[in-house]
């Protein structure tokens, strides 16, 4: 039994689905497709068989630039000591009520 090379040449696409009007597109997975149009059609069949979406984005996986997890420290730590960015940092007299 021999098999032919499979999907080597079909690039990988990342799929983002907007579940309903008013919400953001959310990453839900990836798939292989020859081009963007086909990727959209396949994304519809794979990820929205039960009306899980009203809009789909696809983009080549190779187009994504991700932050490096090994540099998570240097990258995100600068925000860690800025507690004055949070509303709870400020004490407001109780009689002011909700603010």
């Amino acid at each position, binding site marked *: *039994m021999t*098999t*032919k*090379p*499979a*999907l*080597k*040449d*079909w690039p*990988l696409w990342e799929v983002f689905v907007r579940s309903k009007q008013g919400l953001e597109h959310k990453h*839900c*997975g*990836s*798939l*292989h*497709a*020859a*081009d963007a149009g*086909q990727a959209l059609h396949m994304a519809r*069949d*794979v990820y929205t*068989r*039960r009306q899980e979406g009203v809009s789909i984005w696809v983009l080549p996986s190779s187009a994504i630039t*991700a932050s*490096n*997890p*090994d540099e998570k420290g240097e990258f995100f730590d600068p925000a860690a000591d800025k507690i004055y960015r949070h509303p709870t940092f400020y004490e407001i007299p109780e009689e002011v009520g909700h603010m």
Partner: protein
Amino acid sequence: MYTQSMDIPDGAAKKPTAVPDAMSEQEAAFEARIAADGRIEPQDWMPAAYRKTLVRQISQHAHSEIVGMLPEGNWISRAPSLKRKAILIAKVQDEGGHGLYLYSAAETLGTGRDEMLEGLHSGKAKYSSIFNYPTLNWADVGVIGWLVDGAAIMNQVPLCRCSYGPYARAMIRVCKEESFHQRQGYEALLVMMKGTEEQKAMVQDAVNRYWWKCLAMFGPPDADSPHSAQGMRWGIKRISNDDLRQKFIDATVPQAKVLGVTLPDPDLKWNEARGHYDYGQIDWDEFWNTVAGNGPCNKERLATRVKAHNDGQWVRDAALAYAHKQQERAIKEAA
């Protein structure tokens, strides 16, 4: 879907990896995250054995979804009504979708889709043995939905909490769709059980043939399952084979009663002290023999799968040629 316990090595037996004396900083961070029940994401450092175990398990799981389309697919053209046909097409299409979610999750570990398919098509990779049994009549289709998907659900629900993020997320998606699979099967059987004596006998016969095979889907007993402990430690596996099997049996006995069928096990009885049903001896020799490739349908399933793949080659080639042509045209027009 359908996982059987994925403790089944593809080829060479793998010995559980020992914890090294001196852990690297990365390894310590990984272990700490696992210990805190945190999640591992694709870009995170992970031990080679963890990655390898996941690739094997997720790809076997994906293969099971894809091969799992075949036994039921056989009945699409012979479904007893248009309604049942539409339902069955939707179910089989879901299984194809499950396979794709899972291949996509496995690819985040750095193994290509083509490599995984090559593993399946060459017979090197395993898939759930339950699909190496034939679907002889329409009752089998109902029983697969009720019992095979039912067993799969038991297996898959804990995988939604798997330590590897993409696998866990794929499983959440899968589990949302499985309930329909089980219910449509059970309901199809309920209808048959209101039919003629002959139809009732068909249901009972299908249950008799599938019951023990479904129990084996949970994999070998914990005592004979050396990889299980490591999988549990890594948070890949959350509930042991025997515990899942027991949960399945306890859930299924009352369903069988409502349906009006008996389960083919004289030792099956409620044990007040344990708070569970006791059950008889599973034929593990038969299970291993089927895993080894000697089940009634192993060759047929693989051949059907390979033929479908090869027959689709021209479609993949044409789509790619079209995409290239469009690209070239766009470049020319821009110039």
